[in-house]
């Protein structure tokens, strides 16, 4: 790069950084990351992305920007791994490529490759671990017993194939500890201590696990179902910063809803809190919005239930179209936001405007 191009790139980068500093939100960080990718400053992008993901772990904008960044960063590696699977396939080739797709957040591809790896090379533990990791991630997000059970079965299968995999045993022990399966957790820590008797981390974990109250159930399935019940009653999952902020200050949220008037054909916006309570609605008074809230609450509940039962994980958004209207439903940080418009609005435009509202304006 010549000095002039370098100078221009630095100036653009500094301008983009100022924009993030002026209004820090997942959306503005995502824009900054895209700018860095465009300018080829992948190291700066990665630093900002990691900071952003820690700050806003559930943001869609950041997740997507992070994916684009990793894809740009790993393009050569991805090509090499794909070539290896094609030209010299083996258990590790499938494992490496599946791991790379997992890092790229292309979980469908990761699962497909790992499944293929398991099918072709059932005695290699790596591909079971990839499948288990993906399932466990879903368990952490959705807190469903069935996901937890599948993840644990896959991890156990991997342990059967290699009984001295430290990382795997440690992770499995922590999972058992998290769901309240004391006995199983103790067993796994003891397996670590069999081959690493002085390991400090394992000894500390053993102390923690032994201090746990005994499990109320014997079967893992029952323990996980009990965990799922506790999660559903709200004793496990915690609302994120947006939900906390606007549940405490719904009037602040009500003041932001008029921003959505910029959407062509806008008719109404209604926001429900983590327990389905009406937080704010615009336009109209509380009585009118309560009526909308009651109907929309049922729609959100059906969409959440539908997604989980169809095994496509947590519901994120939905668009309901009729001959005369569009209803856009979004769940962000356990807030349920519905934007109602006439059929005049273009679908893409509606989704883009609501996305910006949710990922930028709500955070300011």
């Amino acid at each position, binding site marked *: 790069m010549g000095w002039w191009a370098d100078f221009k790139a630095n100036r653009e980068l500094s301008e983009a950084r100022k924009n993030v500093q002026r209004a820090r939100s997942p959306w503005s960080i995502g824009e900054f990351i895209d700018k860095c990718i465009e300018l080829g400053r992948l190291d700066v992008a990665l630093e900002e992305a990691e900071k952003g993901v820690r700050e806003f772990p559930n943001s869609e904008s950041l997740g997507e920007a992070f994916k684009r960044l990793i894809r740009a960063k790993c393009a050569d590696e991805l090509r090499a791994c794909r070539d290896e699977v094609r030209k010299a396939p083996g258990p590790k080739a499938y494992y490496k490529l599946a791991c790379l797709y997992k890092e790229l957040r292309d979980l469908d591809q990761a699962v497909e490759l790992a499944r293929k790896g398991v099918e072709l090379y059932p005695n290699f533990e790596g591909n079971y671990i990839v499948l288990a990791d993906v399932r466990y991630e879903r368990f952490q997000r959705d807190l469903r017993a069935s996901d937890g059970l599948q993840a644990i079965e896959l991890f156990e299968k991997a342990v059967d194939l290699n009984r001295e995999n430290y990382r795997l045993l440690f992770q499995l022990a922590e999972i058992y500890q998290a769901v309240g399966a004391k006995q199983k957790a103790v067993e796994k820590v003891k397996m670590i201590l069999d081959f690493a008797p002085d390991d400090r981390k394992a000894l500390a974990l053993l102390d923690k696990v032994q201090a746990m109250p005994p499990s109320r159930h014997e079967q893992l399935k029952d323990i996980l179902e009990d965990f799922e019940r506790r999660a559903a009653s709200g004793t496990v999952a915690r609302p994120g910063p947006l939900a906390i902020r606007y549940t405490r200050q719904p009037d602040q949220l009500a003041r932001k809803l008029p921003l959505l008037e910029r959407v062509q054909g806008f008719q109404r916006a209604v926001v429900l809190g983590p327990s389905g309570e009406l937080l704010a609605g615009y336009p109209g008074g509380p009585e009118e919005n309560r*009526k909308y809230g009651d109907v929309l609450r049922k729609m959100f509940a059906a969409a959440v239930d539908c997604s989980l039962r169809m095994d496509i994980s947590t519901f*994120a958004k939905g668009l*309901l179209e009729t001959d005369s*209207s569009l*209803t856009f439903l979004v769940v962000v940080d356990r807030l349920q936001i519905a934007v*109602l418009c006439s059929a005049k609005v273009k679908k893409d435009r509606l989704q883009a405007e609501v996305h910006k509202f949710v990922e930028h304006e709500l955070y300011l």
Partner: protein
Amino acid sequence: MQNILEELNKVAGVKGSMVVTKDGVVVAESLGPDLQKDTVAAVSSHMIQVSDRGLQELNRGNFEQLTLTSAHGRMVFVNLGVGYLVVVTKMEMKLGELLIEVESAARKIKGLNKRI
């Protein structure tokens, strides 16, 4: 109708499709190994009924199409007049491409209904 669903399932990323009535009666189905017929029918019927009832209560017109996007996949429901086309897909499929395929299949099924 079965052929149309089978064709639709050949599109990369589609996990399965079904034509179901609002009451959950399966008219035709072509589902991949991860999907169970009774679950898809029951869940779809519930989703359609709740949405339809909601639209009527709020006086917002007749159900035409619903797209749900979740962390690991998508579902599309299209009103065919005599029933609903339900399609379940993986997340890898881009929404625009998915809707083109689904709407094309829905048009073909509606065409069949007219001929009947």
